[in-house]
């Protein structure tokens, strides 16, 4: 895939190495997003068991 990158005022196509760096960054970000989604799913599962909304649980915790 071709990416465009900007360095100061210059916009140009990324080299193969730069494209690999962009994809590595995006993969790292996706891994973090996946971890967060898992955490949120686990949290929601607990709320579902308790029959509470997130706001109600927050109110209980003060």
């Amino acid at each position, binding site marked *: 895939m071709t*990416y*465009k*990158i*900007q*360095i*100061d*005022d210059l*916009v140009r196509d*990324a080299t193969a*190495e*730069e494209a690999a*760096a*962009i994809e*590595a*960054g*995006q993969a*790292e*970000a*996706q891994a*973090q*997003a996946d*971890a*967060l989604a898992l*955490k*949120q799913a686990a949290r929601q599962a607990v709320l579902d068991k308790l029959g509470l909304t*997130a*706001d109600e649980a*927050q109110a209980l915790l003060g």
Partner: protein
Amino acid sequence: MAYTSSQIVQAVPTGINSALVLISSTTIGTTVSSVAISNAFSSTYDNYKIIVSGGISSASNAGFIYMGTGALPASGYYRFTFSGVYSGTTVTGFNSSNGAAWGGTFQTSTDSSHTSFELFSPNLAKNTHIISTCARSATTANALFTGGYLADTTQYTGFTFAPDAGTLTGGTVRVYGYTNS
């Protein structure tokens, strides 16, 4: 009497003990996957404010920032982020421990997003610290608050930021230095 912009900048420190001085202003291009600013930091200032505002993205995503203008670093980035959507009171926390960048420190939007990064000692032979805030408007509009540091004493002169996915179009990156005295 008319003053040039350089004369005005020189006049500020003499009358005010603390001030923000504009170092650079860069317009973000069209559909770029990353933006690097190469001559942002120097020995003139210890601490900096970077404002990224006014642009849009091809999709609403999180984004990351790292020091330097080269390839994504391997490790050393630590941060904790609070995030919340405007439609509820739930606060979600997420972190990076020894990550490859300060991930999730801003969010892009197809509507509008504004971020303020505060960077501490990026050009000193010390760890660089970051505090950032971001507010965006979009379908899942939310706000982010981040604090973190880079376990690395390299003296950086630039930085790079990028969306997790998609591209950025338009908006401005303004770098300011905080006068030291």
